[in-house]
C-alpha cells in the first residue's frame, strides 16, 4: 500500500535529496524527519520487494525440488541457471553446515539429509513424506538411551531438514507435524525406554503410511464433486489433482480438462500429457487465457504447496489470479491438499511470505536494467476458495484453522 501513497513519494525525495526534505515535507515535518530512509536499505524489504534487484540470485531449493519432480523442460535450463549462478546447488551452504553441526550425523554413518534424499528420489513420494520417512529412520538408527536424548536428536534432525530448504512449506509443516504426532503421546511418560522407543517407531511408521495414503483418500473424497459433462480448469502440476482426475476417469466419469500452460516451467504441458494418456479430453490454454475461457469452466481444481492458517493456500504463481477470476464468475475453486501441508503460517498479503525465487527464461536476452519478477508462488486468500479436499475430509477454508489449532496447541 505504501508505495502508492503520497508520503512514499516524499520519502523518495527525502532519500534522493536530503537538504530538500524540510521544504518538501512541511506538511508532516515530525513524521517524515523521523522516518528513516526506507525500503532499499533494509534487507527484508529488499528480499520481498519486487522492484528491487534480488540481492541473492540463488535459486530456491524449493524450486529445484519442484522442478525436478514436475517439470518437463526443467533439467536443461536448471543446468543453465546453475551455470549462470556459478555454483552447484548441492554445495549450497545450508546443508553442509547443518551436517557438520548435527552430532548424530557426524558421529555415525547415518545422516538425515542423505536418508531424505534417498526417499526423495522416488518420483511419487512427496517431499514431506520423504522427510517423514527420513525422520522415522532417525528414530530407528538412534543410539540414544533416554527419551530426552532421543527427542533432542529428533529435534535436531528435523531442524536440519527444515533448514535444508527453508522455502518449502510442506517440508517444514511435515516435520513439525511429525514431531507433534510422534512425540505427543502420554504413553511415553511411564514406559521404559525401549518400549517407548518402539512405540515411537510404530507411530512414525503409521504416520508415514497415513501420509502416503493421503492422496488416495483425497481422490476418493473428491469424486462426488466431479459430475458428468463438467469442465475442469487445472493450474500447475499437482500430483493430487492428477490422482483425483485419474480416479474420476477410472470411474467412467465424462469430463474434460483445461490445462493452463504454466509458464515458465510449462507444468501444464506435462499435466496435459498425463491426461492424454488417460484418454481424458484436454485442452491447453496459455496462462493469459484463463478469463477468456472461464465461462465454459464448471470448476477450478488446484493443488497447494501449503495451506495456511487463514484457510488460504500458497501455490504456484497464477493460482491467485485464477481464483479471482473464478470468484468473480461464481465458479467453485477446489483445492486438493494433503494435511501434511497445513502450516502455521498466516500471510496477510502477497509479500508477507518468504519468496521462492526461480529462473525465468524469456527466450531473448533481457536488458540488465529490466527487472524480472521471479517469485514462484503466490498466496490465495480463503475467501476465493470454495472447498479444500484433504485427507481429513472435505473442509471449508475456515475449518483449516480449527484443525491447525487442534494439531498444534
Amino acid at each position, binding site marked *: *500500500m505504501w508505495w502508492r501513497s503520497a508520503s512514499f513519494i516524499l520519502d523518495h525525495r527525502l532519500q534522493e535529496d536530503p537538504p530538500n526534505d524540510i521544504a518538501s515535507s512541511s506538511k508532516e515535518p515530525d513524521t517524515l524527519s523521523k522516518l528513516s530512509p526506507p525500503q532499499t536499505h533494509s534487507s527484508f524489504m529488499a528480499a520481498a520487494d519486487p522492484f528491487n534487484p534480488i540481492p541473492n540470485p540463488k535459486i530456491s531449493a524449493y524450486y529445484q525440488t519442484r522442478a525436478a519432480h514436475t517439470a518437463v523442460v526443467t533439467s536443461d535450463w536448471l543446468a543453465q541457471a546453475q551455470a549462470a549462478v556459478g555454483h552447484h546447488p548441492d554445495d549450497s551452504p545450508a546443508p553442509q553446515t547443518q551436517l557438520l553441526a548435527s552430532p548424530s550425523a557426524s558421529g555415525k554413518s547415518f545422516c538425515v539429509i542423505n536418508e531424505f534424499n534417498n526417499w526423495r528420489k522416488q518420483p511419487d513420494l512427496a517431499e514431506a513424506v520423504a522427510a517423514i520417512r527420513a525422520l522415522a529412520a532417525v528414530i530407528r538408527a538412534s543410539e540414544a538411551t533416554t527419551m530426552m536424548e532421543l527427542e533432542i536428536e529428533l529435534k535436531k534432525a528435523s531442524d536440519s531438514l527444515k533448514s535444508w530448504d527453508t522455502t518449502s512449506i510442506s517440508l517444514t509443516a511435515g516435520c513439525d507435524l511429525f514431531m507433534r504426532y510422534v512425540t505427543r503421546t502420554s504413553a511415553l511418560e511411564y514406559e521404559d525406554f525401549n518400549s517407548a522407543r518402539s512405540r515411537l517407531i510404530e507411530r512414525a511408521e503409521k504416520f508415514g503410511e497415513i501420509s502416503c495414503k493421503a492422496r488416495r483418500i483425497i481422490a476418493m473424497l473428491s469424486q*462426488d464433486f466431479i459430475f458428468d459433462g463438467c469442465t475442469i480448469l487445472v493450474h500447475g502440476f499437482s500430483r493430487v489433482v492428477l490422482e483425483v482426475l485419474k480416479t474420476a476417469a477410472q470411474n467412467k466419469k465424462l469430463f474434460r480438462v483445461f490445462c493452463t500452460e504454466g509458464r515458465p516451467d510449462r507444468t501444464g504441458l506435462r499435466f496435459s500429457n498425463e491426461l492424454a494418456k488417460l484418454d481424458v479430453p484436454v485442452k491447453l490454454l496459455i496462462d493469459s487465457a484463463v478469463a477468456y475461457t472461464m465461462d465454459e469452466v464448471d470448476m477450478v481444481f488446484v493443488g497447494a504447496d501449503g495451506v495456511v*492458517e487463514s484457510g488460504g493456500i500458497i501455490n504456484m504463481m497464477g493460482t491467485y489470479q485464477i481464483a479471482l477470476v473464478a470468484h468473480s464468475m461464481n465458479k467453485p475453486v477446489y483445492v486438493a491438499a494433503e494435511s501434511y501441508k497445513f502450516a502455521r503460517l498466516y500471510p496477510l498479503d502477497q509479500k508477507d511470505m518468504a519468496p521462492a525465487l526461480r529462473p525465468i527464461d524469456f527466450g531473448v536476452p533481457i536488458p540488465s536494467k529490466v527487472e524480472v519478477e521471479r517469485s514462484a508462488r503466490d498466496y490465495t486468500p480463503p475467501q476465493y476458495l470454495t472447498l479444500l479436499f484433504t485427507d*481429513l475430509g*472435505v*473442509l*471449508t477454508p475456515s475449518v483449516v484453522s480449527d484443525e491447525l489449532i487442534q494439531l498444534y*496447541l
Partner: protein
Amino acid sequence: MDPRRASRTVSDPKIRQVGFFAPPPDRSFSGPPDPISTSTPNPAAATTTAAAANTSSPPPISDLSPSGNSLSPVMIPPPRHSSDTTHRPVPFPPVSPLRRDTLSLTVGSYNNNNNNIISSSPTASFYDESKGITVKVSPTPAASSFPGGGFDLTAVKASSVPASGLTTVSVVKTLPPGFTETIVEKVGGSVEMQNDLPANSKPLKERTSKAERRALQEAQRAAKAAAKAEGSKLSATTSGAVASANAKPTKATKPSSQKNDSATVASSEKKGGDRPPEKDRKKDAPHPRMQYDDKSRVEKAKRRAVVKQTEARNRVELFRHLPQYEHGTQLPDLESKFFQLDPVHPVVYKVGLQYISGDISGGNARCIAMLQAFQEAIKDYSTPDEKTLTRDLTAKINSYVSFLNECRPLSISMGNAIRFLKNRIAKLPLTLSESEAKAFLQSDIEQFISEKIILADKVIVKHAVTKIRDGDVLLTHGSSSAVEMILLHAHELGKQFRVVIVDSRPKLEGQLLLRRLVGKGLSCTYANINAVSYIMHEVTRVFLGASSVLSNGTVYSRVGTACVAMVAHEFRVPVLVCCEAYKFHERVQLDSICSNELGDPDAISKVPGREDINYLDGCTNSENLQLLNLIYDATPSDYVSMIVTDYGMVPPTSVPVIVREYCRDQVWI
C-alpha cells in the same frame, strides 16, 4: 505449552481424531463419532460452524445431542454419484429404539429425565420438554442475544400450521433461541403421534420453531403478563431466553392464540411439576442482563443498590434497555459513605469509586484492579459461624460484583474473570482449611492475572511483531495496551515504521498513547477519526485492540473501531485485532444495540474549555433532543483479517474453536 493439553494425546480414542487419523476410505464415509462437536453446549458455535460449512458437510444435526451419532463436520456423507454437489440429503444417524420418528433427532437425547417425570404424573402429558433443553442451552448467554436470523429460515414455513394445531390441544411449545434447526417436519403429525405414544413422542413437539425473535419476545411478554395476572409466581431466570413462566396451559395459550401465528412461546406445564429443574436452571443460567426498560425490575434493583444513581432524562429510544445515569452525581455521595459500615469491602469500594471517576479504564486495567481487590477481600475474609466458605464467599463476591456493576457496567472480560473465580471457589476441595482455601484462591487469582493477562500480552506481542515489516505504516485507533506494547517492542527491535494514531472525541485516549509513543522516539501521525478515509491509503497495517471478541468473530471494542476497520477493509488494508483469549466470549452479537454501555451525554454535547462552540448550551434539557454517547461498537468479522491472541494468530472464524477448546467451563488455567 499448557500442561493441561498434555493429556490430549492424539492417540486417545475419546478425543476427536484429527490430523492423521483419517480412517480408511470405506469407513470414513460412515462418519465416526465426533465427541467434541457433539458435546458442545454452545449453539452459537455450532451455528457458526454449520453456516461456515454450508456447502460441503451436512449440517450438524445433532449438535446438541450427546449421543455422538452425528457426522463429523469434516466428514462427507456417503458418496452419492449424482451431479448434485451442493445439496445432499442429510444422512440420519441410527435412530434409537426410543425414537420412532426421525423427527426427534435433535431432542431425543433429552428424553430420559422428561419421561420419568411424565410417567409419574400423567396429567402432565403435555409436559413441555423444552425444559430439558432450556437447561442445556441456557448456560450460553448467546441465547438471549440470538436474533431471529439465527434460525434456519426453513423453519418458518411450517410455523403457522403447527401453531394453530397446538393451540387446540392447548400445548404451546418453545424452541430455545439459538437452537439451530435443520429439519422441518410437520408438527401436526407429531401431535397425533403424541396421543398414541404419550411418553415416547415427547421430543417430537420440539419442531415448532418460529423464527422471529421479535415475535418470540412479544409472546413471552404476553405470557408473562398473563401469568402475572393469574398470580402465579414468575420465574425470572432467563429474561431473554425461553419463557419459563409457570402459567397454566389454558392461560398460557390465550395470549399465544391472540398472537395467532407468531405465538410459539409460553411453556405450558403443571404448576410445580418442574420445580427441581427450574432451580437447576436458575443455578446454571448466566446472570441475566438487566433490561433497564423493564420498570418493575429497575425499581427492585434500585432498592438493593448501594450506589444511588439518578437516571438521565431524554434517553434515546433504541437504547432504553441500557442503564444511563446522570454523571457526576453519585461520586460525592459514595465518598461520604466510605467510612460507614458496609457490606462492601473497602478495597472493592475503592475500585468502584475509581471506576466511576474514570481513574481506572481500559479492559485489562479494570480487570486486574477488580481481581486484585477481590484478592484483598479474600485475604480479609473469614467465614461466619454456621456457614460454609464456598457458599458464603460466593455470595460475598456476588455482592461485590453487583456493587461494581452499579459503578460501571462490567465488561465481558471481567465477567469471564468473575466466572473463573466463582468456578474456583465452587471447586475448592472440602478438606481444605479456611486459611488454606484462601491462600489457594489468592494464588489462583494471581495466576490468572499473570498467565491470562500479562503473559498473554507478551505472547501477543511476540506474534504480532512478526507482521511488522520495515517501511510499514501502522494505524491504530484509540489506546489499546496490547497495541502499545506491540509498537514499542517493534521499535525496540529496530524496525523502521511509522504510526498513525486515529483518535475520536470525547475521550481522546489516543493522545495519551501518542504522548507515550513520541516519548519513546517513534514517528507518529495523529489524526481525528474524521480523517480516517484520507489517511488510510498510505497505511499498510491496522492494529486494533478489543474489549471482547465474540463467538461469531465480532469484535466488540471502543466506539469508532468498526468505522476504522470498515475503511481499512475498503482500502484492502489488513486489520489485525489484538485480544487476549480471556476476553473471548461464546455470546453472539450482531449489532451494537443489544449490549452496550452509555456514557455521559454531556460529554458529546459540550467541549470543555471552548465556550464559543458550545452551541447546545441550554437545549440539553429539551424534550426533542436525545443525546447518545455510545462507548462500544461491534465490528463484523468480515472486516477483520486476523485476530492475534495468546494461542497464536487465528482467523476470526476460529474464535469459537478457541472458546470451545480453552474457555469452556472456565478451565482457563
